[in-house]
């Protein structure tokens, strides 16, 4: 689904952030990306949603060479990708509900569908009382959950989550990871960038590490996919399936 071939990335006027990056993300896989702060995790994700183009090398997304995807091809590609931004990037004047509804609206979904699915998902991420709240009235963790809901509402084929649990307590973090696993079970390829080692340890998924501009695999694919290791009481909420009714936007 994603293939990096000798990819190099440099921001204008600075040395290469990433160099000689070679790895593939298989369809329907679930992977973590770890690395120290400033290592280049966000930059790596940015390449994958075409927020940046490689300075060198070849990157292919959904079987297309990123270099050949023109401006007009980008929106269609992005609709197949759900992105949780490290800085959330919620639209400040829209309520939590409208922020989450946005991908569906952009995709031209019916309002009746929006009214059905969006509140359900917001409830699932624990924001029942905040449908009409503006982002600046929400805590960091609440904003993060709005951002996650917005990323998954359209049931994307690829989910890129940048530090999606950075602002929530462990219980909520695990619960959000369950949401990602639900999506994964329905076929979404999930990539999560995080420096939360404990979380990575708790879920048994392949893991890539970014260090010194290189990306290396620290925990291989084919390791026991699927069920996470048993965790505490926080997992008990994970019985309902947040995505079972959802449609593809």
């Amino acid at each position, binding site marked *: 689904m994603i293939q990096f071939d000798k990819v190099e990335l440099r921001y204008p006027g600075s040395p290469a952030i990433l160099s000689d990056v070679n790895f593939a993300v298989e369809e329907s896989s679930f992977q973590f990306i770890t690395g120290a702060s400033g290592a280049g995790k966000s930059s790596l994700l940015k390449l994958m*949603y*075409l*927020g940046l183009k490689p300075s060198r090398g070849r990157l292919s997304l959904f079987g297309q060479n990123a270099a050949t995807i023109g*401006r007009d091809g*980008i*929106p*269609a590609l*992005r*609709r197949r*990708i759900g*992105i949780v*931004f490290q800085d959330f*990037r*919620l*639209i*400040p*004047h*829209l309520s939590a509900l*409208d922020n989450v509804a*946005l*991908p569906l*609206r*952009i*995709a031209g979904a019916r309002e009746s569908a929006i009214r059905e699915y969006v509140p359900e998902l917001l409830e699932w991420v624990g924001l029942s009382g905040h449908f009409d709240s503006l982002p600046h009235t929400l805590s960091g963790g609440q904003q993060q959950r709005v951002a996650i809901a*917005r990323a998954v509402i359209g049931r994307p084929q690829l989910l890129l989550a940048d530090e999606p649990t950075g602002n929530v307590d462990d219980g909520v973090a695990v619960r959000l990871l369950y949401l990602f696993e639900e999506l994964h079970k329905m076929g979404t390829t999930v990539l999560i960038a995080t420096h939360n080692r404990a979380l990575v340890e708790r879920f048994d998924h392949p893991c890539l590490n970014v260090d010194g501009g290189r990306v290396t695999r620290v925990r291989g694919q084919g390791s026991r996919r699927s069920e996470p290791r048993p965790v505490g009481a926080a997992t008990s909420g994970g019985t309902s399936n947040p995505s079972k009714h959802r449609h593809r936007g």
Partner: protein
Amino acid sequence: MALIPRGDIPLSHDPSARYLPWLLGIMCYFAVLASVGAVISHQLAARWDFALGSVVTVQIPAAVTEGSDAPRLSQAERMMRQLPGILRLVRVDTSRSVELLAPWLGAELAADLPLPRLFDLHFAAPPEVDLKQFEARLGELFPGAMVEAHTQWMSHVAKLTRAVEALGLTVLALVIGASVVAVIFAVRTSVSIHREVISILHLIGARDGYIASEFQAHVLKMALRGGLVGGFLAVATLAGVAAALEPEAVDSANLIPTLLGGLPAGIVEWILIASAPVLVAFVAWIAARLSVLGALRKMNP
């Protein structure tokens, strides 16, 4: 269809939201006045070209037009009817002339006044006959007979009205051009104000067209609001002018003919006039789309 703002981008708080409706309202005001001017002049010019530009008046002195002169008179009429290109000959009724003069001279005096006999010769087009020569031939029958073509001075008037019409259309074009410039300027400012929101929309898969439609709907709303006010004020102005010119005419039935210099305007002309604000709004809507798309192309998607 880019008609109703969705509110994804908070455009209603932009500076342009405050001045653009006014500006477009003023533009619509001038657009309506300019199109009324153009339509009136067009009608007048067309009518005068046709009706007056091709009319020749023949005047036979009063002294010789008594009953005994009937044979000569009919011979003169025959000569007139034989002119090439003539459509019809209208004998101007002397009693009508008397009526016109009565208020000035008193009914009796007017009735006794020896009035010249007048004929209107209507031609399909401005006559090509040598009118001087025709006047000389008539002069042999009735010394002092005069043949007067309106063509020349009428063509001046027609040219003038054509010029007024062209002026009206030029003003309309300028108004539309100025609206386009104002919209382009406002939209570019808005795009840079909302750069951040636009980039989020791009990141979650919005096409440029989706973003542009938000701006279009916003501009259309402002243009229609301004156009409504501007159009209303323009009609009020016209009614005021009409009232000043002819106070008794300002009941609704007479207003329209009065506005058009006594010429009843057709429904087509009124549709043209009413469409001026709609035209301004439509042009603003298109200008908004093109300028947003242009500005977005300069941003990274």
